C-alpha cells in the first residue's frame, strides 16, 4: 500500500509539473481559454515536452552549454502547435585567423580595448569570446484539405551582439495511400549584427599598440566602417518522401539558399607575411556580400528484423555546393539497437568533408597584396571532420524517456595546395580541433 501511495504521489507530482508548464505555456500564448476545454476533453490533447541539456567543449578553445525545452500540443482536427525555447552560453577562445609564428605575436581585442599575446609556435586564439543567446521558435501545423498539410512558423534569436528574426511556411501533399509525400517550404531570416568594437574596414590593418594613449580611439575608429550590418537569408526546400515497404522509408530533398548582406566575420584577420614567412601585419578579412548555396539530401531508414536485433538504421548523405567554390559531402549514420524492452543504444558516425572557398588563404605574402576577397577562417578552408558517439535511452514508467549522449568531434583542416614560406616550417598551420559533446535529454 505504502509503495502504491508513493508511486501515485510521484505521478501526481510529475503531472503537476507538466500541468504547471502547460498552464504557463498557455498563458504565454494567450490560448488558455481557447484550449482549456479541449485539453480537458481527452488525455491525447496534453502537452508533450522534450528537454535537453548539452555541453560542447573544445580542447583549449570554445565551450558552450545549451538548454532546450520544446512543447508540442495536438489539438482536435490534427492541428499541432510546437514551441521551443533555447538558451545557450559560449565562453572560451576562438581562432582569430592569423597563423602561428616562430615568435610571440600581439593582437588587439575586437573591442579595441586591450591586447593579447600569443606565444611562439601557437595558433593565435582570441580568448575574449563569450556570449549568451536566447531563441524562441513557434510552429503551427494543420491539415488544409484531405491530403494537404500546411505549416507556418516564426523564429526569434537574440545575443548580445546579434539579432535574428525568421518566418517559414511549408506545404505537404500526400498521395498513393499516404506512401508518397511531396513538400515545399520557404523560409526567410533577417539578421542584424552589432559586433563589439563595430564593423572593421575590410583589408585595413589591425591597430596594435598602446590602447591607453590619447590618440588610440581616433586611430582605432579609422579601421571601422560602422556599428552594425545586416544579412538576409531566403531558403527554398522541396522534398519527396517515399515509403518503400513495411520496413523502409526514404527521403530526397533539394534546397536553394540565397544569403545577402554582411557575410564577413568581423573578428577574423589574415596574417600578412614577408617572403621568409614572418608576420608584418594583420588585415581584417573580406568576404563577398552574397552567397548562393544549393544542396541535395537523401536519407533512408530501415527497420531490420529479429536476426539483427530489430535495429533501425538511419543513413543519410548530403552534397552541398555554393558560388564561393565550396562543396561538401556529409554522411550521417545512426543505428538504434533495442536493449531489452525499454531501452536502446544508438551508435552514431558522421563524416564530413569540404573544399575551400575560392578566396580562402591561410595567409598573404607581402608582395601579393590583397585586391579582392580574402579570408583565413579555417571553417571555409579545406577540411574533413568526423563525429563518433553513442546515445543510450531508457523509457521510464509512464512512457517518459531519459537519454544520454556522448560524442567526440574532430576537425582536421588540410592544406589546399599552398606552399609555406621557410619561417612557417615546423608551425602547425592547420591545427586539429577536437571537441566533446555531452547531452542529457528528458521527454515527458
Amino acid at each position, binding site marked *: 500500500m505504502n509503495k502504491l501511495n508513493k508511486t501515485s504521489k510521484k505521478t501526481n507530482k510529475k503531472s503537476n509539473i507538466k500541468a504547471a508548464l502547460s498552464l504557463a505555456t498557455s498563458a504565454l500564448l494567450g490560448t488558455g481559454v481557447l484550449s482549456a476545454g479541449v485539453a480537458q476533453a481527452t488525455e491525447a490533447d496534453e502537452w508533450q515536452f522534450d528537454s535537453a541539456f548539452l555541453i560542447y567543449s573544445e580542447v583549449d578553445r570554445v565551450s558552450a552549454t545549451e538548454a532546450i525545452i520544446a512543447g508540442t500540443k495536438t489539438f482536435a482536427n490534427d492541428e499541432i502547435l510546437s514551441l521551443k525555447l533555447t538558451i545557450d552560453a559560449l565562453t572560451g577562445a576562438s581562432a582569430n585567423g592569423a597563423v602561428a609564428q616562430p615568435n610571440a605575436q600581439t593582437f588587439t581585442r575586437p573591442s579595441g580595448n586591450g591586447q593579447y599575446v600569443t606565444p611562439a609556435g601557437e595558433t593565435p586564439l582570441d580568448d575574449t569570446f563569450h556570449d549568451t543567446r536566447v531563441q524562441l521558435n513557434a510552429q503551427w501545423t494543420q491539415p488544409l484539405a484531405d491530403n494537404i498539410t500546411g505549416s507556418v512558423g516564426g523564429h526569434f*534569436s537574440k545575443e548580445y551582439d546579434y539579432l535574428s528574426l525568421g518566418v517559414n511556411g511549408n506545404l505537404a501533399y500526400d498521395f498513393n495511400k499516404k*506512401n508518397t509525400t511531396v513538400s515545399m517550404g520557404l523560409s526567410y531570416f533577417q539578421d542584424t549584427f552589432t559586433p563589439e568594437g563595430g564593423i572593421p574596414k575590410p583589408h585595413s590593418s589591425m591597430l596594435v599598440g598602446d590602447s591607453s594613449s590619447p590618440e588610440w580611439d581616433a586611430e582605432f575608429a579609422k579601421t571601422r566602417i560602422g556599428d552594425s550590418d545586416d*544579412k538576409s537569408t531566403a531558403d527554398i526546400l522541396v522534398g519527396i*518522401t517515399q515509403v518503400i*515497404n513495411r520496413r523502409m522509408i526514404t527521403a530526397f530533398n533539394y534546397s536553394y539558399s540565397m544569403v545577402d548582406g554582411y557575410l564577413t566575420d568581423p573578428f577574423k584577420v589574415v596574417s600578412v607575411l614577408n617572403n621568409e614567412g614572418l608576420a608584418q601585419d594583420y588585415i581584417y578579412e573580406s568576404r563577398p556580400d552574397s552567397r548562393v548555396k544549393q544542396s541535395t539530401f537523401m536519407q533512408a531508414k530501415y527497420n531490420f528484423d529479429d536476426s539483427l536485433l530489430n535495429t533501425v538504421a538511419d543513413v543519410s548523405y548530403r552534397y552541398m555546393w555554393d558560388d564561393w567554390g565550396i562543396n561538401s559531402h556529409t554522411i550521417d549514420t545512426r543505428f538504434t539497437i533495442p536493449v531489452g524492452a525499454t531501452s536502446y543504444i544508438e551508435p552514431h558516425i558522421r563524416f*564530413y568533408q569540404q573544399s575551400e572557398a575560392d578566396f580562402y588563404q591561410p595567409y598573404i605574402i607581402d608582395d601579393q597584396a590583397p585586391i579582392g576577397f580574402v579570408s583565413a577562417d579555417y571553417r571555409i578552408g579545406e577540411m574533413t571532420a568526423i563525429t563518433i558517439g553513442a546515445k543510450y535511452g531508457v523509457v521510464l514508467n509512464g512512457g517518459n524517456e531519459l537519454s544520454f549522449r556522448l560524442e567526440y*568531434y574532430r576537425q582536421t583542416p588540410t592544406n589546399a595546395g599552398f606552399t609555406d614560406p621557410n619561417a612557417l616550417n615546423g608551425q602547425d598551420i592547420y591545427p586539429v580541433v577536437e571537441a566533446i559533446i555531452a547531452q542529457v535529454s528528458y521527454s515527458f
Partner: protein
Amino acid sequence: MKANKPVFKTLSQPNTSKVHISKVNASKIKLALLTAVTVSLSACSSLGVEPWERDLLAKKEMALTSSPVDAALDDHIYFSKEASSGGKSFGGGGCGCN
C-alpha cells in the same frame, strides 16, 4: 597491373579530347540521373504499404527525424563549425555563430 595500362593511355591524351570526354560523361550522367528520377517517381505508385501495415513505420525511431531536439542541437553545432548547413531542413541564419 597490365589491365591498368590502357587507362593511363587514355588519360595522357591531349587536353581537347579530355574536355570532349568529360562533356559526354556529364551528359550521360545527367541522362542517367533523369532516368533514375523518372523511374523512381513512376515507380512510386507501386511502392508502399497498406494502412494496416504501418506498425513499424509508426514507431518513433522510424520517423525521418526521430529526435528533433538532437537534430536542432547538432544543426547549431555544425552550422557554427563548418561551411555547410541545412539540406534536411532549412539551413537559414539564426545565430551569429558563423
